[in-house]
């Protein structure tokens, strides 16, 4: 078995590099954003690697021109620059023309905690979710990131992959357990409560689950690695019998997976009581480690456990019978 000591970024790009060695039509463009694995691209596949400079709008347009001409293009930058700076180019050049370009972004949530709100990735899911034809992947560990690089290679149309610099310890042991057409993984079955999490918050969800289960709240975990299109019907089949449902994401509470799950739940009768957990919609102007910023925003394992516990104890918040 492969030994994973690399984060999901390097796992993704290593996987892409292995594909690109066999397919000369794969082009990687970076907006002056690095990764260890890019060195191999630069040295060995220099014709397939472009550092386009700090010019994200042009990066998307050039990617579109290459894709129109038959190339399979991956573009790469930190979350706000890969999604917001060039949003309208993504909308028109990639989505309107349905081109096979994969936007790879690094720095989900507070991953770049010491770089401040300019570099926080807190609105990207909302933005990408509103674009017609866009597929959104949000891997939870390095193994699935490696896997998704190959999925994006085969898949038509524009894709957005939201990466994290972490990615280990692994959540998955074997990629055969990952069902892309399903779009999510049932990591742990629950009887009372389900947590639907995405990205590295899946790891946090598994830790929260241990704590809640110790308090006799039998909690299950779903890894929602494909946020759009949402496989709402299959998720519903999993969660419909529990009394409580939580979403957990390192993204603003509006527009992310909490919102997409809400949109699914409102179409259902007798849905579980629902609590979305994410980052309050305000810029975080404090600095420190990622863990510190998570604590400030009540996204650390202790705060999440506490908030779920209190919510469940408050019987009035549930229209189902309490546990």
């Amino acid at each position, binding site marked *: 078995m492969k030994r994973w000591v690399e984060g999901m970024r390097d796992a993704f790009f290593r996987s892409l590099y292995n594909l690109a060695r066999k397919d000369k039509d794969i*082009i990687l463009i970076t907006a002056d954003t690095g990764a260890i694995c890019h060195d191999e691209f630069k040295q060995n596949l220099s*014709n397939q690697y472009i550092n*386009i*400079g700090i*010019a994200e*709008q*042009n990066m*998307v*347009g*050039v*990617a*579109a*021109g*290459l*894709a*129109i*001409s*038959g*190339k399979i293009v991956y573009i790469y930058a930190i979350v706000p620059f890969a999604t917001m700076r060039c949003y*309208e*180019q993504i909308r*028109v*050049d990639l989505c*309107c*023309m349905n081109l096979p370009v994969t936007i790879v972004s690094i720095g989900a949530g507070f991953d770049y905690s010491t770089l401040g709100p300019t570099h926080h990735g807190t609105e990207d899911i909302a933005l990408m979710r509103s674009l017609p034809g866009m597929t959104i992947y949000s891997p939870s560990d390095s193994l699935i990131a490696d896997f998704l690089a190959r999925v994006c290679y085969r898949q038509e149309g524009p894709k957005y992959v939201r990466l994290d610099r972490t990615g280990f310890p692994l959540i998955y042991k074997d990629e055969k357990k990952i069902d892309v057409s399903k779009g999510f993984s049932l990591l742990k079955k629950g009887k009372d409560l389900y947590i639907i999490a995405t990205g590295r918050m899946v790891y946090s969800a598994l830790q929260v689950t241990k704590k809640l289960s110790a308090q006799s709240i039998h909690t299950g975990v779903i890894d929602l690695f494909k946020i759009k299109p949402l496989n709402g019907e299959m998720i519903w089949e999993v969660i419909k019998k529990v009394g409580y449902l939580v979403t957990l994401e390192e993204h603003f509470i509006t527009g992310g997976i909490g919102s997409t799950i809400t949109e699914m739940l409102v179409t259902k009768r007798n849905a579980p009581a629902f609590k979305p957990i994410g980052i309050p919609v305000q810029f975080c102007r404090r600095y420190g480690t990622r863990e510190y910023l998570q604590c400030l925003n009540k996204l650390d394992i202790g705060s999440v456990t506490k908030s779920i516990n209190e919510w469940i104890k408050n019987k009035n918040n549930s229209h189902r019978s309490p546990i």
Partner: protein
Amino acid sequence: MRNQVLEMAVKAGAGHIAPSFSCIDILVALYYGGVLRLGSKNPKWVNRDRFILSKGHAAVALYVVLADLGFFPVSELMTFAQNGSRLGAHAEDTIPGVEASTGSLGHGLSIAAGIALSAKMDKKKYRCFVLLGDGESHEGSVWEAAMFAAYHRLNNLIAIVDYNGLSATDFFKNYLEIEPLKKKWEAFGWEVVVVEGHSFKELLRVFNNQHFCSSDNPLVVIALTTKGKGVSFMENNPIWHYRIPVGEELEIARRELLSDK
């Protein structure tokens, strides 16, 4: 052709007449002057020259040209912007002969640069032409693309700036000057030629000039044009960017265009 543009826009009550009249001679030079190596018999021919209409609001002019050349039926032209039509005020890549969807300014040069780069990567001989509006120079992305194209020595990329001095609401010298435009492009590493944009002779002299084909640099042709060219009251008048003539104005426009013929 100008008259066809006028009648389509009048019927639809939509479309950009004056911006189309500004650049239609450039389109005719490219498509009928033996410049673009392409044809409607094999519109997806892999070695065809590509043309991107970055000022996508002149789509009505491009559609007249493409229909005349057989990319789609001429009879479809009069459905322009009607209920259910696929032809609208901005260029769509779903229309045969249209390489990319445009309409938002500042996109076309990057897309064209990507296409030109792809030709280089694949060692193919085709060229990519892209027509920009002059007001489009206000978009920063144009200059990102200009820098990129020159650095990558995309000498198979030919940009044409439809330089009529007007944008949607005003002469831009009154609110954001783009001069010195020639020096700007030169500073970005491009070959620059300034021509009379309504002269087929001058346009073709540049488009078919082997000197530029042998240069390492991309070429920009600054075409001096008149917005609304061909209809006296539209020419150089800012109010006609997105206005459709009615009544007596329409009669005058028709008369002038047909007599011009």
